[in-house]
């Protein structure tokens, strides 16, 4: 049965030290509130998976929650570097960060393979890339019909998926609209899934019979967290705080500025909407 929990209880119950967690959301619907609660609860030694480590992963890394990162693009979109990510890789601060680097195509296919119950995904990829030499998860198979070489990566099957969505109904069915990214796949690929939503509603108001809906029996826990994607955005609810993304470059560049900001806006604050203020 799907549980309805507070954010605090959901993170306490589902995020375990040393486990593998994927918080997904492709620019849109990034589960910031959930990430902040992980930081507040001081989870440790996490292996985090995410195609586009965004500000929330920069924060998790900088706050020392992360042992290993699996990713394909780790930057601040349109702005520049993720300074905490760089500091961890380049200088081991606050401690060394192990990385597993992929391409987007590899990770998208690997999530889809996880959702599909396959041990691996095949795709046309990585041709000539040096990533092949530094990532032992990249292998090749031969097409049994044409003899072509195709790249293969293992399916991604995290211990836990965390996503943010627009709505859930009282049964726990979840609606996602707009840029849906890999969220359906990560929920179906993961052993367990927690979904934070903008609102709990009587009727999902799915605009189409083909809308992206996750049935309640694919979701373990639902958390009502309005504004839970800020400063990212929720299609139909609020827009992306692009100015904050730009500001983050300054905040995160310096270790102590970063720590002060985290103290004030995350550790001392339990109201996710205030975060981007």
């Amino acid at each position: 049965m799907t549980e309805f929990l507070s954010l605090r209880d959901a993170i306490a119950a589902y995020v375990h030290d040393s486990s593998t967690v994927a918080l997904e959301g492709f620019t849109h619907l990034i589960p910031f509130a959930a990430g902040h609660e992980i930081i507040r609860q001081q989870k440790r030694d996490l292996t985090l998976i995410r195609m586009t480590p965004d500000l929330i992963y920069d924060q998790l890394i900088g706050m020392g929650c992360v042992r290993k990162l699996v990713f394909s693009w780790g930057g601040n979109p349109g702005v520049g570097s993720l300074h905490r990510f760089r500091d961890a890789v380049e200088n081991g601060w606050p401690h060394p960060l192990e990385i597993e680097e992929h391409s987007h195509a590899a990770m998208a296919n690997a999530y889809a393979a996880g959702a599909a119950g396959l041990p691996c995904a095949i795709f046309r990829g990585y041709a000539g890339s040096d990533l092949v030499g530094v990532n032992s998860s990249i292998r090749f198979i031969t097409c049994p019909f044409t003899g072509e070489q195709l790249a293969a990566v293992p399916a991604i099957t995290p211990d836990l998926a965390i996503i943010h969505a627009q709505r859930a109904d009282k049964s726990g069915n979840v609606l996602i609209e707009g840029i849906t990214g890999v969220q359906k796949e990560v929920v179906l690929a993961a052993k367990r899934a927690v979904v934070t939503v903008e609102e709990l509603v009587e009727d999902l108001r799915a605009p189409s019979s083909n809308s992206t809906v996750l049935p309640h029996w694919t979701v373990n826990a639902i958390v009502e967290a309005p504004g839970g994607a800020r400063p990212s955005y929720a299609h139909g609810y609020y827009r992306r705080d692009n100015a904050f993304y730009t500001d983050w470059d300054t905040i995160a560049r310096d270790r102590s500025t970063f720590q002060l900001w985290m103290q004030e806006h995350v550790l001392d604050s339990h109201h996710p909407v205030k975060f981007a203020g």
Partner: protein
Amino acid sequence: MSYSTTEMMAVAAARALANEDICFVGIGTPSLACNLARLMHAPEITLIYESGTIETKPDVLPLSIGDPELCETALTTVSVPEMFQYWLQGGRISVGFLGGAQLDKFANINSSVIGNYERPKVRLPGGGGAPEIAASCNQTFVVMAQSRRTFVERVDFITSFGFGEGGDHRQRLGIRTQGPTLVITDLCLMRPDPPTKELVVVSMHEGISREEITQKTGWPVRFSESLAQTLPPSENELKVLRDLQTRTNRAHGGK
């Protein structure tokens, strides 16, 4: 009318696009160029962003690859696995844009690390969609500011394969697409020289000398025999570009 080097790059890239093109657009100058082309000579150009938005017509430039404007103005938005499976790998994209921290003379791109991979001097964001954009689009355009630090003899790390060691290296790897056919810098345009595939300067921007280009290229760069002069941005191109930038800044600036 004076203009910036970024404006020159955006205009040069826009001009290389046609109404029939189906573009896989990156953030930054590529996004500027594609939308400029759409507002100028290529009103029906198809713009696709890897977040899943197909045939998007944003009124302002997105800051990220998945800004609300993209989905709201798109013909349809698909999931990210579908984007990479059916649309990019499916061979439907005519032009993809690439950039990076380093480019070498065979148009290989490094966007992973400066220095050693295990203990890097600079950890870069990584390739994102680039390794497969480089292989799956019919052709790619590289947009990068040029310096001896960024245009190097050999990249520290090949994140996205261009022509490898040159010649028929792409074909030998089973890659069927053309690869990087055009490099647009703040100084010039380069194209791969058949059959070696070494990048050569084919057009110099206004006010740029051969010496400056040579000085800012990390390999002994060659110039095409039919070296051209890049037409500077027209008044109209600059007006449309700046209007777009102004709308964008207004949209992104306010908290």
